[in-house]
């Protein structure tokens, strides 16, 4: 048990170290404060690189991603709000760059679709289960003839 705990502890340590390494961008940028660094990195994680699609600004090392990453970091240090930075990005590259799309009329299906599907599933499941339970509750009446046959079968089996 103790060794197991040790192994688990080691694994936790290992994973926390790897994530710490991953959080550092390729180029060095000195943030003014640790809070800024946290905000800058989390923003850059949520923005998609327009060139290497399916990579965010931190993962991608294309020149465009590097420029945009630095631009985001600079804006964070200038004290610009998240909304302002996201507006800066979407006004140039379109809403495509947002990994987290805005909640709008045209994105309702994206945001609410999964919840809707889950609800539909639950409703169908509920109806299904209820139906089965009702059919299961029907008292099993067997006719006199069947009972006699059953008895004789049981008797034969017990011999």
């Amino acid at each position, binding site marked *: 048990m103790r060794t197991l705990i040790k192994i688990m502890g080691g694994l936790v340590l290992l994973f926390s170290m790897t994530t710490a390494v991953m959080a550092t961008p390729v180029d060095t940028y000195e943030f003014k404060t640790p809070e800024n660094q946290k905000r800058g990195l989390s923003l850059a994680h949520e923005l998609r690189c327009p060139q290497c699609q399916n990579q965010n600004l931190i993962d991608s090392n294309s*020149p*465009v991603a590097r420029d945009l990453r630095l631009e985001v970091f600079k804006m964070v240090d200038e004290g610009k709000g998240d909304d302002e930075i996201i507006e800066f990005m979407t006004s*140039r590259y379109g809403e495509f760059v947002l990994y987290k799309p805005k909640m709008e009329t045209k994105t309702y299906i994206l945001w609410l679709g999964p919840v809707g599907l889950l609800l539909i599933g639950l409703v169908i499941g509920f109806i299904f289960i209820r139906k089965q339970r009702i059919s299961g509750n029907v008292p099993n009446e067997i006719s006199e003839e069947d009972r006699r046959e059953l008895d004789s079968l049981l008797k034969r089996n017990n011999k």
Partner: protein
Amino acid sequence: MKKLVLFIPLVIFLAMGVFLYKGLFLNPQQLDSALEGKPIPAFQLERLETPAEIITNEQLKGKVSLLNVWATWCPSCKYEHPFLVMLKRKNLLPIYGINYRDERAPALEELKRQGDPYNVNIYDKDGRLGLDLGVYGAPESFVVDHNGIIRFRYAGPIDQRVWSETLYPMIQQLQAEAAKDGAS
């Protein structure tokens, strides 16, 4: 009625299948530009040939024009180059070059060797104008109307097909609009 209900999942499946199958043939690189309908972003940059001369966005207004983002490090730009040179010879509209994230000397060398299709070349060394234009790779071309409004963005090299099917009809239409504005 009950049997019809059983077919609902199949119908949904087929509808999604058609939808997703169509999606297979879309080009994910073909993004709509967020700048279509907006003016050329404000800039003040050196001219490629003469560093002392400053070009601003105001100078690009007045005529329907083609704004072409290029660089010497970009192979597709080399592919596109002869076509642009040919366009220039036809003198259909001004072509403005944006030399994007490039070095001055090799860029000038390239123009000397391959011909210069550009009326004016803007030297965007840091890619700041490119960033404001939402450029994510070169070559990219913007069709700009006489008021300096970006009307269309094309990502990728221009060739005869793209030119005659998409760009030129649009440019002709915009030039007609410009002529009407000028007359009234």
